[in-house]
């Protein structure tokens, strides 16, 4: 156990700073002289940093290194997948999604399918994914506080939950783009600085490896009975799940147009590629110096334990404190961003109209945070990165088919999308619940339940396509206009149509009474 003071100070400082920024807000303030600058949107670099800052969660900061420590080469796919997801997003989704003008995935469903029911179903799934994604954040916070100061596991979770509640309920998180952009660089620094010190130390110590590095299971990919399936399923989940994360989609709204959205995505790819080199090195160093964690099963703590395992004295405490601060920054930024997105959807679509707007939003936040804490108590310590990947699996089985088919296939109908969302969502959620409950099915069912994406995502696609083909008569009347809007660059002057779900009667294409040639003299 390290000296607790440094760690405690670091965590408290990060929490207070985040609270202060969240409650008082950092607003971009400009005077008349640079009016022109103020009326410009933030550039792709800031936006990409903001996405990176919000996206890099406990799973990336702690979990990825922990999995590399315990599983070796196969766990590299977590980092690769979390980055490559943006490649799929870039090529197939980013620009059309921005052009749709959707702020949430529910908005997209409503716009493309012209159906209130599809909106409702999407909102439920957004909340589901949000809670599943919040779960490992809270879990990681508990683990971090335990490692830093020896606090009981629930303390850190409750601390993060409380800070998030205060920030969101106080109406904060207003100018989050700049704050979140700062978070990326904070997280990167918090990982890079200690790593540099540790690498220098390793070189000085002779740069030696360790026997546990040369275990075939660890160093060679695809070892084990169902490894091939597990790796491919992981790839499906992470490659396709990224586009279905509520907080990522909300960030794309900040881009001024589709082109900027693509550029932002390229920026995110670059930033994430740099970041994800670090957990790998931590994992390898951990294999050399912190192998005891593999035996005790607490591999998620490797990033935090490594400094005290390699160095001694105040220097190690300082590095641990810095890493702890970075980890807390990761939990807080991801959790508050997610809580805002999910509570927004929940209050708008599910609680709508119960009371006034502000109270709805606060109630929604409390519900989301509370549900996550309950789920945390019920779950059985799945590794942080695994738990995040389960949220990706649900996203890949629901919103990935919705977005890809919705953007690229005009045949998608509301009944098709809803049945696909329900089928993919139910199957993947069932598998996730089994995994979270620590249930290990015998035989082939084991890996199928542990990494469900490889079969639930195709089921989601198949059901959407199948039901859409059967209900081909119920294509949204404005689908061609919507397609024009999604795929035409903004500077082209074309009719992007008009659609209003509140007034389904306003459809000029379907006259209620025939005029002109069909008009008959009234004789009755």
């Amino acid at each position: 156990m390290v000296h607790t003071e440094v760690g405690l100070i670091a965590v408290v400082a990060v929490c207070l700073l985040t609270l202060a920024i969240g409650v008082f807000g950092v607003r971009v303030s400009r005077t008349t002289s640079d009016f022109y600058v103020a009326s410009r949107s933030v550039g792709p670099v800031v936006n990409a940093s903001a996405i990176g800052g919000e996206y890099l969660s406990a799973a990336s900061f702690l979990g990825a290194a922990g999995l590399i420590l315990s599983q070796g080469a196969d766990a590299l796919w977590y980092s690769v997948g979390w980055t490559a997801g943006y490649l799929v997003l870039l090529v197939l989704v980013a620009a059309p999604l921005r052009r749709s003008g959707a702020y949430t995935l529910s908005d997209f469903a409503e716009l493309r399918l012209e159906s209130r029911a599809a909106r409702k179903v999407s909102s439920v799934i957004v909340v589901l994914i949000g809670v599943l994604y919040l779960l490992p954040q809270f879990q990681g916070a508990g683990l971090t506080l335990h490692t830093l100061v020896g606090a009981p596991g629930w303390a850190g979770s409750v601390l993060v939950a409380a800070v998030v509640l205060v920030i969101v309920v106080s109406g904060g998180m207003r100018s989050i783009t700049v704050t979140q952009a700062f978070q990326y660089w904070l997280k990167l620094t918090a990982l890079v600085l200690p790593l540099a010190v540790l690498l220098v130390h390793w070189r000085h110590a002779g740069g030696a490896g360790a026997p546990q590095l040369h275990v075939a299971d660890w160093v060679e990919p695809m070892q084990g009975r169902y490894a091939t399936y597990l790796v491919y399923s992981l790839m499906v989940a992470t490659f396709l799940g990224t586009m279905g994360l509520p907080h990522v989609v909300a960030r794309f709204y900040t881009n001024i147009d589709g082109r900027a959205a693509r550029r932002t995505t390229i920026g995110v790819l670059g930033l994430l590629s740099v970041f994800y080199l670090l957990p790998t090195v931590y994992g390898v160093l951990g294999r050399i110096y912190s192998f005891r964690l593999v035996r005790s099963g607490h591999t998620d703590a490797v990033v935090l334990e490594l400094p005290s395992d390699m160095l001694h004295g105040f220097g190690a405490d300082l590095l641990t404190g810095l890493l702890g601060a970075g980890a807390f920054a990761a939990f807080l930024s991801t959790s508050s961003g997610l809580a805002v997105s999910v509570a927004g959807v929940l209050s708008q679509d599910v609680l709508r109209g119960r009371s006034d707007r502000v109270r709805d939003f606060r109630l929604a936040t409390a519900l989301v945070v509370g549900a996550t804490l309950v789920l945390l108590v019920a779950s059985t310590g799945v590794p942080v990165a695994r738990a995040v990947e389960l949220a990706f699996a649900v996203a890949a089985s629901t919103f990935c088919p919705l977005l890809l088919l919705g953007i690229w296939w005009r045949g998608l109908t509301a009944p098709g999308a809803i049945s696909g969302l329900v089928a993919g969502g139910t199957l993947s959620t069932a598998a996730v619940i089994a995994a979270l409950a620590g249930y290990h099915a015998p035989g082939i069912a084991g890996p199928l339940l542990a990494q469900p994406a490889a079969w639930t995502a195709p089921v989601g696609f198949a059901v959407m396509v199948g039901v859409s083909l059967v209900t081909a008569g119920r294509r949204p009347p404005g689908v061609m206009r919507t397609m024009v809007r999604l795929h035409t660059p903004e500077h082209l002057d074309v009719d992007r149509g008009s659609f209003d779900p509140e007034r389904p009667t306003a459809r000029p294409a379907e006259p209620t009474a025939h005029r002109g040639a069909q008009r008959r003299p009234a004789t009755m």
Partner: protein
Amino acid sequence: MAGVSNVVVAAAVVVLLALPVAALVWWARRHRGMGSEADRATLRSLHAANRAGRALREGLSQSSAERAVRSLRPLLTAPVVALSDGRTVLGWDGDGESHRAGESHSGDVLAAARASLDDGRARVDRVRCSDPRCRLRAVISVPLVVDGSRIGSLHAVDTAARAPLIKATHEVAVWISGQLELAEVDRRRSGVAEAELRALRAQISPHFIYNALTTIAAFVRTDPDQARELLLEFADFTRYSFRRHGEYTALADELQAIEQYLTLERARFGDRLRVTLRIAPDCLTVMVPYLSLQPVVENAVRHGLEPKSAPGHIVVEALSDGADVLISVEDDGVGEDPDRIQAALDGVAHADSIGLSNVDLRLRATFGERYGLVVETAPGEGTRVLMRVPRFAARAHAGEAPAH
């Protein structure tokens, strides 16, 4: 650990089992105590009529007719019920649409529809069928009349033209005509709302142009260079305000128009006018009704700062608030009696303060009643105008994308 996991799995199973049971109990409770058989029959008819009515309120189309006939058939208790517009059969419920290749009753129904649309009266046609199992012999057709013109017909096909069925078909047809008339009214009402929006938008530009031209006119003799600069700014602004396409624009574009407007105003005010913008970057892409913020700023300049001799300050702020963006325009000018502002928003004040009520009307018409302007003011206390805009409103994105 294993003990805990078993408990959790058991709990999940219990929850999953309990849900359908709870749903059954709820359903049973809702349907208990519905009275005698006659009462229930009445309720069933009303329910069917309600469902059919909902479909018909969308107007007479293939999809609405298909949904409507499904509820109309139990209402009429005929083996086949169909709706037609005289050219095709739009909706058909029941057997006999086609027995086998080349043999169908929809042709018979269509012929009956044409005949009844031509003479404008209910009629009964005999049909023949070579399929020995088919016992349908009579088509009852009643025209549907909206605004005095016959736009379609309702058909019941049965084994015989029973008098009660003819009477019921007639009653239902009259009721359907009523629903379709309501649909037509709905359609016209939304057309009127759109025309009103366009008219309101047209109102805003001339108002500003008049003010800008008088400002420039003041400089033409004393400072021709300045006047020329201002005319060029004015030209830029009019290009924005005369744009043909789109009712909506990104907040960033609207701010740019405000900058051009303020350049014109600052020419008159000189150092007396200071403006601060606090805009969260993620709010710049929100779509606002075109020229909705500029009249508010103009109002702050004209009615807040102009009557005041000391320098004035305007603060424009935009913040995210959940799924909405909150925009506020605050000035430290002379303020106004809240009752007069209320009168202006109600549209009973003089034409000079047309800006605020116009913006208020357009916001309400676009986003709904909850999105009206909020004005906080008192004499001598300055004015703060709050505007709430949803980040995503399907209508707001139908128009032009940001012009960048």
